[in-house]
């Protein structure tokens, strides 16, 4: 069918996945406080045969994600009349939606035993994940800064709550507060950036902003400040250095599955919106923001990888690793061409899956709680639990970008995008920091395989429940598939960015 946004009803069709997801979140929320899930019964799993620790709510949420995926697939058959509506129905959005939905599904799968063991309110937990996901989908769909802002807030507020969700854990509460305060702060930047951009261009529609900026109809001073503030707002959300300070503490303190979700999906959503705003809206002033982005990418890659070298807590190490990956993705934003945009999507997909996988194993090792997170706790783990050990090794190699894994193909894709804009110095920084990253990823591998566990039976308690296993097998399969046969997804990503602007290639060889 064809969508014409001059008819308001057509927004309903364009937003069908988001609408279904929000409604489903409400259903889960209500189901969580009724019937066998009524609050009084949840904390007691001692010998209660009807207690399932929220597993049924988990499966219910998962069904919702699958349903939304169907609607997302249906949107491929829909065409929009022109490209200035508030909502985009294009490949870029739909590809990003796959990433968010995949991340949500994996998060739900790895949460089952965590929710049960930590005695969390399952209904609220899963509903918040679904709501956060819907916020992300709004961000990817938005062709208007206001919609991006709404999406950002829906996502962020849900994630603030998730971060502090484990009320019995002081670290969780601290992380929640920290994230909320800094997040609110960055939102201020973002909102003011929108206001100034509106003042400069007379519109909040990204396509119209793009036209105004390219046509020289924007007032320079306001626009510069507006772009800078938006850049800072996004840099906070993707946790680029030097706006990353909140990340390690929040990732370390948040409940394990939430950390996995944040480090993959929240980052992906911020990046997708970042890409659209800067590629479509601000391509006319590429020269102005290009050097800033260049340095942001370079500093993020270097600093994050260096700090990660000395981390002894695995969760914290993965937090710095996620900042480092943000640095790699910023290279794509700096390159700002079609290949880079496709590379960004491909990399986000791979990164989401491999990061989720790594966190799934970390959750197993830590007994679905917040203990046993030091790297020493991994000594001898590989030989005690060969399957989980091999899986974690695959995820680590993929995060390190090793051939045979999706991470390698993703990095090649990013490097190709950089090559198309002649960013050779940035490419060299990328590969050199990658060498540094080998150290901390392989350190986990050497503890797992090359050291003996201090005490025998150290890893006997480690278990991977059924749902977690499903997530693990799916992740490994996707990572290896993308590493060996990336061709299909590659062309899919390339086709998905058609229609998005391309500016980097026109400025060959410009250096800051």
């Amino acid at each position, binding site marked *: 069918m064809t969508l014409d946004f001059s008819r308001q009803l057509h927004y309903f069709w364009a937003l069908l996945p988001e609408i279904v997801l929000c409604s489903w979140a409400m259903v889960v929320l209500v189901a969580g406080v009724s019937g066998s899930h009524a609050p009084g019964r949840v904390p007691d799993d001692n010998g209660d045969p009807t207690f399932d620790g929220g597993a049924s709510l988990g499966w219910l949420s998962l069904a919702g994600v699958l349903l939304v995926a169907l609607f997302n697939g249906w949107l491929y058959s829909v065409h929009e009349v022109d490209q200035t509506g508030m909502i985009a129905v294009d490949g870029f959005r739909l590809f990003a939606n796959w990433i968010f939905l995949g991340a949500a599904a994996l998060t739900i799968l790895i949460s089952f035993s965590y929710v049960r063991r930590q005695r969390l309110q399952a209904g609220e937990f899963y509903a918040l994940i679904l709501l956060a996901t819907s916020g992300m989908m709004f961000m990817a769909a938005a062709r208007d800064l206001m919609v991006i802002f709404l999406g950002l807030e829906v996502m962020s507020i849900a994630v603030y709550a998730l971060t502090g969700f484990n009320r019995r854990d002081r670290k969780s509460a601290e992380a929640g507060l920290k994230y909320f305060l800094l997040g609110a702060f960055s939102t201020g930047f973002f909102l003011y950036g929108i206001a100034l951009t509106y003042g400069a261009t007379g519109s909040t529609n990204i396509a119209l902003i793009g036209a105004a900026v390219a046509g020289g109809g924007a007032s320079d001073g306001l626009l510069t400040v507006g772009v800078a503030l938006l850049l800072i707002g996004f840099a906070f959300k993707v946790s680029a250095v030097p706006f990353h300070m909140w990340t390690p503490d929040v990732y370390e303190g948040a409940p394990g599955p939430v950390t996995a979700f944040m480090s993959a999906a929240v980052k992906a959503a911020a990046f997708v919106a970042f890409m659209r705003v800067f590629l479509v809206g601000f391509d006319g002033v590429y020269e102005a923001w290009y050097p800033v982005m260049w340095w942001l990418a370079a500093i993020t890659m270097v600093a994050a990888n260096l700090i990660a070298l000395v981390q002894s807590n695995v969760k914290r190490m993965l937090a710095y690793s996620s900042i480092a990956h943000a640095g790699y993705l910023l290279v794509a934003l700096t390159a700002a061409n079609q290949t880079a945009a496709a590379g960004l999507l491909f990399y986000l997909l791979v990164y989401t899956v491999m990061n989720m996988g790594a966190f799934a194993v970390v959750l197993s090792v830590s007994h679905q709680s917040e203990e046993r997170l030091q790297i020493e706790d991994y000594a001898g783990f590989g030989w005690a639990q060969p399957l989980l050990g091999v899986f974690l090794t695959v995820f680590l190699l993929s995060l390190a970008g090793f051939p045979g894994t999706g991470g390698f193909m993703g990095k090649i894709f990013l490097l*190709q995008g950089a090559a198309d804009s002649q960013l050779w110095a940035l*490419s060299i920084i990328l590969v050199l920091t990658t060498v540094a990253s080998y150290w901390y990823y392989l350190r986990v591998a050497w503890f797992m*395989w090359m050291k003996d566990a201090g005490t025998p039976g150290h890893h006997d308690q480690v278990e991977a429940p059924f749902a977690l296993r499903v997530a693990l097998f799916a992740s490994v399969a996707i990572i290896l598939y993308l590493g060996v046969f*990336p061709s299909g997804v590659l062309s899919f990503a390339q086709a998905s960015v058609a229609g998005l602007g391309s500016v980097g290639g026109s400025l060959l060889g410009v250096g800051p």
Partner: protein
Amino acid sequence: MTEILSSIGYAEWILHALIWLPILGMGLVLWADEERAKHVAFWWSAGVFVLSLGMWWAFDPGSGVMQMESVAPWIPGWGISYALGVDGISLFMVLLTTLITPLAILGSFEYIRKRERAFYALMLLLEAGVVGVFVATDVFLFYVFFELTLVPMYFIVGIWGGERRIYAAIKFFLYTAFGSLLMLVGILFLFFKAKTALGVPTFALADLLQVPLTGTEQLWLFAAFALAFSVKIPLFPLHTWLPDAHVEAPTPGSVVLAAVLLKMGTYGFLRFLLPLFPVAAQHPTVVLVMMTLAVVGIIFTAWVAAVQPDAKKLVAYTSVAHMGFVVLGIFALTVNGLQGGLVVMISHGISTGALFLLLGMLYERRHTRKIEDFGGIGRVAPLLTTAFIITALASIGLPGTSGFVGEFLALLGAFETHPVLAGIAATGVIFAAYYMLPMVQKVFFNKLDRAENIEVHDLTRRELVILTPLLALMILIGWHPTPLLERMEPSVQVILDRVESASADLEISALPTDTIQAEAVPAVGGDE
């Protein structure tokens, strides 16, 4: 033989089989019992070797271009194909790999006592990776295999190695990864140039050879590629990872590392560095730097080797010296030099592989590698001693052994262009005798004054099976190298033609050959 092979379409599937059969074998080993794993691994890899022998007949010695080629699209969007082929250079490297792997596996039966399944699986994975490196004709595919060999070796050293195994493993990994990732940027730069020049994305080596590059570009790319390969070789002063890796690695790890993994570096020189960047490769300064590094490596590591108390470390340092001869021969840029380099690669693979195996056998008997702990072994283990002496002599390049042929040719080639450097390098042969022979004397001929040494038993049947083919090859190549040389020559000639035609271009454009800033030189034309 040729008819039989062609009747079963041998040339079409053999290269695929040599990559994928070891991976299949890996699955079988993991599936087998812990006790049976080593037998499965040995017989499987021995079968792969027998299969690979057919290449000797299927290979057309008269041709210098890629043979047994097969190409399948892998990632068409980026112009990456799964393209395999062998020529007179890679043929011997492939055969060396398939020969050394089963012998190294057989040599680890006594040494590897824990986690055997995982170990043998990794050995087979390593074989697949190394064969892939030698037969890939797509630069991207080559890179994938080149990196892929790191992982099994990392785990082999790190899990089954000695005291400082983790340090050695991570050092090995980071050194080589550092070099190869810079090469990756170089490869992508080439790809980008190819896309602009040819209009289609492609990573095929044959296409990349057509890309015009300026002198400066060639120089930078040369540096990136040379760094990656030099770490692997290893060329002085990038060699410091090697002694650590060798000393800590288990015997089979050392054998494969010395015999085939180091060759990936010099192979890269021949396959990529010279043909892709001929202008940079024959620039007088570049040649001088590379040859000087090679000579310094030969002399320096010979001296260092002479004072090592640890026999294994001694042999590790000799590897650096021998690989120095290969680099010396290659940058002579003459037929003799290149052929000599290739023969040293083969000979070093055989003799150093055998030395590490023999040291492993001594270690299994005495649980020490200190030279001073031995003495008079010759009287109690005559066969072991004989084998060791033949291997040591082949290693130091005694006439009549494989080592002599290679080093002689390499030096001869170097003499034709750089007599002084070749002269200095030739003293390295003398130093080789200076470090190797005293070691042999101390271990095998001094007084038999320790009770532990009296109880050393001679070679077992299994050990004889390991050593016999290697010893036979050392002497066979020493007396009759012609079959090797005649198969190499056409391929070597192709490389040299390419280098020389680039120099013709240089003269036409009147490039001042003593400066590096050779901007905008159409360095490489269509010189097929």
